[in-house]
């Protein structure tokens, strides 16, 4: 088999690699996996198998529906008590582990540092847990006096028939605060992705639109699908503020439920992580007429592009000038660092397997440093995240996606923004793209390897084949890859570093890559005597 060293000579035969990976699998598995591993060719239409069940027994990166709902989407919001209805583990594992930073003002509610659970016991499983859930909500209210409580279902809840929605309604009536439930049992979908959708539905139904407050800014926007890991949202907030753009709410980094309640008064929704949040963007457009655009603030060039796109939307000359001024100033700083680091890392190979958007977005950062992404894939994405939204009408609804509720959204006659609909039509005529995401594959080189839901075996083979210089994935993969002598950058938790968003974040990432790729520690793995001929001792104790 050809190895990575041949790569610079042009195309290499990835078919052989794929075949070798398949050889290990029982035929049924091979038949399925081969459709999830594509040798990319942007020039032709290619279909990838995504958002389907993981094969039992396969060591996957994926998590569960609960993780997507509670952990990802609702977890970063600070002024709500997220009460997990279930045995203790589910709440315990989602307790502070996603690094969603938040910055509450003095005296403002912040429950992110807390972990709430009904800690279901066997008698709750046998006789039902609704009474305990009600009592737990009462106790949470008694002690903490929160403004809102979200109730999250774990696996046993749905199975024993506990109705978290009716309990939530009852308790909402009893306590007079906003209480709502999520049927996000771990088994609901094939990955976290189902949980994102369920969370979107719940927030849209129960929170968005509760407060029709007056305008506070000239250009009002929401940031969707940005979770403030490592402080990314702080970078973006500072950027918008300086530009004079009013960020009403974020879904859901550094966010509050309070702000989501008036998020429908925005003029534009920016979608960062398409996979986890496009549902709310779509529903807000249908109900309130707010257009959405795909943005990417990972990478300095992408940040500039996204900022310009927002400024172009509003079309205001002062705003445009301000945005240009910021870009110009920040790019000077970015370029200075980039120029010093790029020569040392250029030509290295990277691969990344995370999430529903990061495996795409981070390629921009790497290419700014001249690092080539030879293989990438998502953990829980759908075909549209790979091939673009153009394939949406052709995605088949299977049994696993059918059980997630599709909300029927109707136009809000009073609040519907006809002015925005007209603005959108006008801009579209000029070639401005709305609700468009072209996916990861068109942006990747020909003959790069695209892999959905990569598993342990495939990871090992990829490392053996490419010997990449840096591998990006999550905590479960981190030390597996590093034991093989390849540095791994976590793109979920950022290895407790960051921020990596916007201009300042790009600089941080360049410096981080220099650290990871320039260190000599990996070259010290073998002891100096390892390659010397062995000495025969004459002074050993036994001698």
């Amino acid at each position, binding site marked *: 088999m050809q190895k990575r060293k041949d790569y610079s000579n042009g195309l290499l035969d990835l078919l052989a690699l794929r075949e070798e990976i398949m050889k290990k699998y029982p035929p049924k598995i091979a038949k399925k996996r081969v459709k999830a591993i594509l040798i990319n060719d942007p020039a032709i239409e290619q279909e990838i198998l995504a958002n389907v069940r993981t094969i039992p027994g396969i060591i996957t990166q994926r998590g*569960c529906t609960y993780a997507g709902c509670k952990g990802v989407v609702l977890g970063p919001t600070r002024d709500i008590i997220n009460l997990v209805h279930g045995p203790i583990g589910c709440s315990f594992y989602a307790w502070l582990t996603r690094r969603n930073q938040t910055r509450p003002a003095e005296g403002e509610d912040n429950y992110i540092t807390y972990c709430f659970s009904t800690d279901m016991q066997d008698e709750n499983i046998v006789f039902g847990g609704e009474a305990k859930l009600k009592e737990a909500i009462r106790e949470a209210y008694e002690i903490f006096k929160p403004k809102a409580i979200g109730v999250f279902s774990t696996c046993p809840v749905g199975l024993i028939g506990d109705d978290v929605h009716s309990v939530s309604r009852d308790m909402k009536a009893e306590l007079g605060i906003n209480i709502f439930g999520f049927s996000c049992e771990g088994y609901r979908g094939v990955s976290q992705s189902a949980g994102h959708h369920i969370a979107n539905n719940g927030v849209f139904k129960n929170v968005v639109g509760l407060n029709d407050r007056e305008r506070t800014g000239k250009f009002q926007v929401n940031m969707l699908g940005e979770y403030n890991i490592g402080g990314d949202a702080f970078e973006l907030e500072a950027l918008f503020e300086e530009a004079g753009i009013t960020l009403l709410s974020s879904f859901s980094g550094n966010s509050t439920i309070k702000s989501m309640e008036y998020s429908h008064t925005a003029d534009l929704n920016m979608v960062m992580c398409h996979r986890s949040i496009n549902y709310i963007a779509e529903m807000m457009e249908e109900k309130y007429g707010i257009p959405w655009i795909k943005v990417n603030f990972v990478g300095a060039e992408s940040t500039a592009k996204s900022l310009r796109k927002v400024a172009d939307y509003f079309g205001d000359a002062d705003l445009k000038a301000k945005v240009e001024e910021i870009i110009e100033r920040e790019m000077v700083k970015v370029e200075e660092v980039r120029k010093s680091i790029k020569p040392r890392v250029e030509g290295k190979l990277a691969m990344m397997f995370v999430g529903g958007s990061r495996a795409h977005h981070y390629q921009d950062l790497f290419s700014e440093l001249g690092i080539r992404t030879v293989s990438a894939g998502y953990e829980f994405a759908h075909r549209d995240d790979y091939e673009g939204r153009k394939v949406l009408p052709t995605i088949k609804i299977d049994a696993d996606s059918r059980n997630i509720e599709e909300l029927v959204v109707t136009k809000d006659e009073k609040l519907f923004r006809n002015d925005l609909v007209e603005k959108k039509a006008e801009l579209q005529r000029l070639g401005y793209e709305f609700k468009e995401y072209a996916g990861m594959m068109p942006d990747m080189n020909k003959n790069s390897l695209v892999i959905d839901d990569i598993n342990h075996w495939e990871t090992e083979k990829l490392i053996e084949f490419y010997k990449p210089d840096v591998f990006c994935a999550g905590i479960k993969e981190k030390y597996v890859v590093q034991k093989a002598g390849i540095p791994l950058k976590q793109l979920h938790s950022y290895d407790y570093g960051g921020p990596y968003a916007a201009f300042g974040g790009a600089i941080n990432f360049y410096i981080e890559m220099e650290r990871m790729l320039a260190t000599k520690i990996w070259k010290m793995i073998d002891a100096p005597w390892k390659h010397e001929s062995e000495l025969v001792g004459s002074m050993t104790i036994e001698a």
Partner: protein
Amino acid sequence: MLLRHTTNEVKERKALTVNPAKTCQPVGAMYAALGVHGCLPHSHGSQGCCSYHRSALTRHYKEPVMAATSSFTEGSSVFGGQANLMQAIETIFTVYEPEIIAVHSTCLSETIGDDLNQIVIKAREEGKVPLGKFIVQAATPSYVGSHVTGFANMLEAFVKYFAEKTDEKRRQINLLSGWVEPADMRELKRLMKVMKIKSVLIPDTSDVLDTPMTGKFEMYPKGGTTIPEMVSMGDSMQSLGLGEWATQKAAISLNNKCKVPFEITDIPIGIKATDRFIQALAKAGRVSIPEQISEERGRLIDVITDMHQYLYGKRVAVFGDPDNIIPLIEFLVDMDMKPVYIVSGTPGKYFESRMAEILSDRVPETKYKNGPQADMFLMHQWIKENPVDLLIGNTYGKYIARDENIPFVRMGFPIVDRIGHSYFSTLGYMGGLRIVEKILSAIMDKQDATCLEEKFELVM
């Protein structure tokens, strides 16, 4: 403030747990299974369980933690998970080639009533288990007990499945290690060597979760209790279980199956628990205690007498698992410290009697609670009522420590923000020395950082 909603006003709770001092069974089963050589843990449930447990263990050890899952979907939850487990077994033996698959259940598979025994029997009958390969299974419903219970159940499953009684007695003892770190297991093995006792240690995560960097990933590292070792346990002279919660079940099971007598003693943390452990070992192995052990003990006592003034009367809050904190509390009391607040989420009546035994005379003012609602929130409220000088527990304690400005020593599971626990043992007299060192450093670092300039000491 990080925990800005916590006040000293304690309200009785019956249903709500806040900031738990425990987690659920399967993660314990996974940890125990990693201490068996060539074994791949398998989580029979939703993907998230396996993902969460692997993540938790990986963050704690900063090492690869491999495990597979049955990847339940809604269909399997309705129709049962048999088909998923059958397929998983085939997939695992083909793709990952372990010697043993250690299957544990989850709240999901337990709630729908999947019978692991029956499924595994069926898998064997259908030839899905290659010759010379094994499947061990344990029921670990997440809604019973805690992570410690899961560890105990998996451990029991291993000895029950593998241990065999032959006509030949072996001059060895079985050491059931309890939930301790790889470094602790290494230390136990060193102590056995010093005592000149042949033993089988199970589980044994040393050389599994503390492996060296070699540039090559090993799916099944060299450590872990081996199959022949487990088989031989049925012929051992005695079993010694370290910790009631984690090892009693396995010890009883082994006794039932192979008539190996057993004794349960505390995990050797601190002076007295180590004394009891060493004496039990000497008795079980019929050996005299070597001078080296007495010297190690002497060193520990020496250091405590040297530094007693910094320990005496210090109020301590402790949270963790019963097997680990019972001997720890005893150790603190022996050093004249005052463990005033103690919580453990793990249920079990024995906890109370042990606490009363250790504390009622020496620290009568102590408050302790275990089981439901015995959580870190309650302990923090107690601390708010009347502060402490030291906090001991897992990493989650750092939020309390920072808010209340309390010196903090990390012990327990999980420790995700510091290293050391997997490399430096806290067991035996030498481990006791490490605990003393950590406690002193924490207390003295605070004194150095906060005392008045004129009170700043060079020699301490």
